[in-house]
């Protein structure tokens, strides 16, 4: 940074929307943070452009009430930073890193630029290890891997907050290494925030968590900083303190809307559906902060949550997210309506990194077979269900009827589970076997004979 001493100016020449122009500035740098002081109140902003001695500043809290001659602008000579130390665990901050849990500010180890730096692709290690969420349809079929970014695509009114809280409560790595959760809330309601905070406190998860809460009525622009605050905390815990960190971010849709709002205020040429053309790159600077690094023990795993506007997966927010993340977990409104919790639609869901993170020594040797067979059988069951809807159940062959029953049982026993129910991967796979035993054994084409002999309930009974 060019200047680390703050300089103050009273030379605001114009205000429009959230933007200020400050004249006769010397030493301002691109991207540095400013404080705008007006009638004893301090707002924050960021330098968007510097042209000779003019600086274009974006004010996070908006410019309403600001009048030119009285406003002072202080250039801080640095970007937005988050003070960190191990004491951030157990704490709750606002979206800008200020404590809101009534406890004193932390005594920082150091302050880190929240934008971080890109991980050198050469320095990455491929994600290979399992995180158990306790949810069967994730652990069994769309396994989350340490270092992965796996979003939940939800819709308005679907129970993603409950799922997020449940995962925060039960998620664990099973090799005994240190595990932490960083939770970033963006633009959520006060009630929803309370639900999360209460649930983190009740379950005790708060002890190994850091929460950043940006509420719906907080400045939209602060929302741009919130996930970066969270990821900076996560990088510190993962790569300096050797923890496996799970970052839950909700709701990325609110984040993207803030991005659009700012682009509109800057009168940028809008891209698809009004979102800025650089949204892909912007989201990538968030999502790509997940990963493992060669020679470091910790990892960052991301579980971003977004609500698809109109349940439309081709909307730019889920679309661009899907292009960056390593799979997606899709929630289904029909399943939700029919009372299935969590309403995870396993067919269009996918964890792209699961294959190398499951199996012997990771989860269990039969995992891959069970996964493929459950997937295929449920797909057949859903097809039979569609057919029955057109031609009636009488038109189905006995085998199709069997698959039809399987699909119903799968939704009821495998996908459905209590919000307080924490299943181990073994329990998940055993439920899978119980369901597969509903089908004729010769239909289990995706399972190796040795796994059938070892895990199929019929064979297990024979052994007893």
């Amino acid at each position, binding site marked *: 940074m*060019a*200047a680390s001493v703050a300089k103050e100016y009273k030379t605001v020449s114009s205000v429009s929307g959230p933007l200020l122009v400050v004249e006769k500035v*010397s*030493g*301002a*740098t*691109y*991207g*540095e943070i400013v404080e705008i002081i007006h009638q004893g109140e301090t707002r924050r902003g960021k330098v968007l*452009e*510097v*042209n*000779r001695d003019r600086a274009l500043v974006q004010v996070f809290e908006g410019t309403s009430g600001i009048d030119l001659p009285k406003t002072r602008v202080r250039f801080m000579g*640095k*970007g937005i930073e988050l003070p960190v130390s191990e004491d951030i665990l157990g704490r709750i901050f606002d979206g800008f890193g200020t404590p809101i849990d009534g406890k004193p500010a932390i005594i920082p180890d150091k302050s880190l630029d929240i934008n*971080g*730096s*890109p*991980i*050198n*692709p*050469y*320095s*990455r*290690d*491929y*994600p290979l290890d399992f995180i158990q969420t306790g949810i069967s349809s994730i652990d069994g079929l769309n396994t989350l891997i340490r*270092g992965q970014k796996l979003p939940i695509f939800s819709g308005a009114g679907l129970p993603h907050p409950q799922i997020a809280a449940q995962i925060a409560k039960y998620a664990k790595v099973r090799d005994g290494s240190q595990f932490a959760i960083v939770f970033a809330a963006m633009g959520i309601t006060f009630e929803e925030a309370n639900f999360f905070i209460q649930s983190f406190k009740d379950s005790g998860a708060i002890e190994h968590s850091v929460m950043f809460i940006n509420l719906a009525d907080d400045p939209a622009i602060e929302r741009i900083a919130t996930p970066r605050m969270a990821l900076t905390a996560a990088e510190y815990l993962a*790569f300096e303190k050797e923890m496996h960190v799970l970052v839950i971010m909700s709701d990325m849709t609110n984040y993207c809307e803030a991005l659009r709002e700012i682009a509109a205020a800057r009168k*940028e*040429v*809008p*891209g*698809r559906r009004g979102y800025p*053309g*650089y949204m*892909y*790159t912007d989201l*990538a*600077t968030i999502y*790509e902060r997940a990963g493992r*690094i*060669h020679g*470091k023990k910790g990892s960052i795993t991301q579980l971003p949550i977004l609500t698809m506007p109109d349940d439309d997966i*081709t*909307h*730019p927010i889920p*679309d*661009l997210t*899907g*292009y*960056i993340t*390593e*799979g*997606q977990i899709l929630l289904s409104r029909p399943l939700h309506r029919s009372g299935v919790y969590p309403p995870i639609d396993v*067919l269009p869901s*996918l964890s*792209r990194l699961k294959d190398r993170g499951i199996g012997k020594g990771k989860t269990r040797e039969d995992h891959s077979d069970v996964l493929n067979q459950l997937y295929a059988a449920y*797909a057949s069951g859903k097809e039979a269900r569609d057919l029955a809807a057109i*031609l009636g159940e009488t038109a189905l062959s006995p085998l199709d009827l069997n698959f039809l029953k399987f699909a119903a049982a799968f939704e009821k026993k495998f996908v459905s589970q209590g919000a307080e129910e924490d299943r181990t991967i073994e329990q998940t796979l055993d439920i899978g076997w119980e369901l597969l035993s509903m089908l004729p054994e010769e239909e289990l084409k995706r399972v190796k004979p040795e796994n059938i002999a070892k895990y199929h309930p019929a064979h297990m009974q024979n052994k007893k």
Partner: protein
Amino acid sequence: MGSIIKISGPVVIAEGMSDAKMYDVVKVGNPKLTGEIIGFEGDKATIQVYEETAGIGPGEPVESTNMQLSVELGPGIMGQIYDGIQRPLEVLNAMSGCFMARGIDAPSIDKKKKWDFVPLAKKGDSVSQGQIIGTVKETELIEHRIMVPPGISGKLLLISEGKHTVEETIAVIETSSGKKEISMLQRWPVRKGRPYKERLAPNAPLVTGQRIIDTFFPIAKGGVAAIPGGFGTGKTITQHQLAKWADAQVVVYVGCGERGNEMTEVLEEFPHLKDPRSGRPLMERTVLIANTSNMPFAAREASIYTGITIAEYYRDMGYSVALMGDSTSRWAEALREISARLEEMPGEEGYPAYLPSRIAAFYERAGRVISLSGIEGSLSAIGAVSPPGGDLSEPVSQGTLKVVKAFWALDTALAYRRHFPAINWLTSYSLYLDAVSGYWKKFGEDWRELRAKAMALLQKESELQEIVRLVGVESLSINDRILLETARSLREDFLYQNAYHEVDTYASERKQYGMLKIILDLHEARMKMAFEGQPAKDILMMKVTADIAKMRLVPEKEMESKFLAIEKEIRERKSSPGGM
């Protein structure tokens, strides 16, 4: 030296730049960030900066290197991983750790390493530009052929056998404008195609081992192909498959604005995977360019040019080179972003009006050529396209469609059903059939007819499926039911190919031909049975179908005997005991 007057993201304007030229590489601000001059107005230069510009301000210095954005070419490139402006990522990792620091620079090619130079020309020979005057063993697989740099011709005054670094003089040439010292290191500006003697039409396939590509929609050596698809449809896996198994001698893989973990996967896998033809580790023939989505997007724009220039250089040595770009859409988006910062007039969807010509110019650098040294080389280019929402009506897809000759359309519905590769057989196409037919005749005189027949069956299947949906399969004639069975077998037993299965991942030409022949022979046999009036049950339920379903998994070594057995069974027309 000039000084900065304005900064807006990656675009910086500096004044006092009259000493610099358009396209010069410059060092920007106190941290000496790398940038390139992309516009001039009087002494004011507009600079595209390839690193994050936060923290720099007006008044900071800008210095020209008086060189255009170039790549370093010479022994030592093979097996490397570079960023978009050819900075060696392994070296940067050693210098500044696992996060990318700003303003650091490292030589693209190791300047200390000594290579054993073996001359092919001798003192007194007259040599011309592009001529190969010696070789160096770069890897077990690649003989690096040292060429006289373009623009230099004359009499060899000296040529020096033995161990040299890339910068040491290995030859001196007496040119019309004086003596020129030649080293093994060349520079070439990335935005300019390297010269060659003559362009030839493609005449052989780039064999990829992927059945739907080689048999149905082939790409020729020196050809251009695009692979568009929404997220999760298989663009990257297909590109990785090609990088692994294509019978190119050199592969340049450009990860342009995509995931870091995908580059890691290549870096971890390729040193262990063996090239099916040479048995050597794939990394010995591979160069990686990684400018992932979170790295500065201005360098993403440059990355595909860095990649294709390196590819051209190996083409000039007489190699068949394949370049993969994943994804060209991210390159186009970077172009759009820079254009917006320059306040250019936006065209369709905000892309600059020159987007189509830039796309065309990029693919135009592929081709089969006679190089300046008189030997043949080829450069095939395969670009992934990532259309928003999977909708191909957008400018990047459309601009690409106009220039590529093989088009592999990935289909979200197929990917959703886990049919991989999810390349749609009804909408994809290749214009290289004539170019590759001669090659395939070696494996079967009737290759082209078989392929046409299979395509026709699949086309007919899609029409019949409409009818089946309305009235059920029972109402179809036996011939149509046979057709549906054959089409199903084509899809599931031939087109489906699991990239993760150790055998299925690659199929030789012989195996591809054999599989297709068997499926269509069974079709003929069934048609005959129907003509003879045999019962539908016997025709449709034949025992041999179980073996046909397993053909993909038959290792190449056992193929001959297994396939002969299947052919025999087809002739014997055994129906399956008790039906299904």
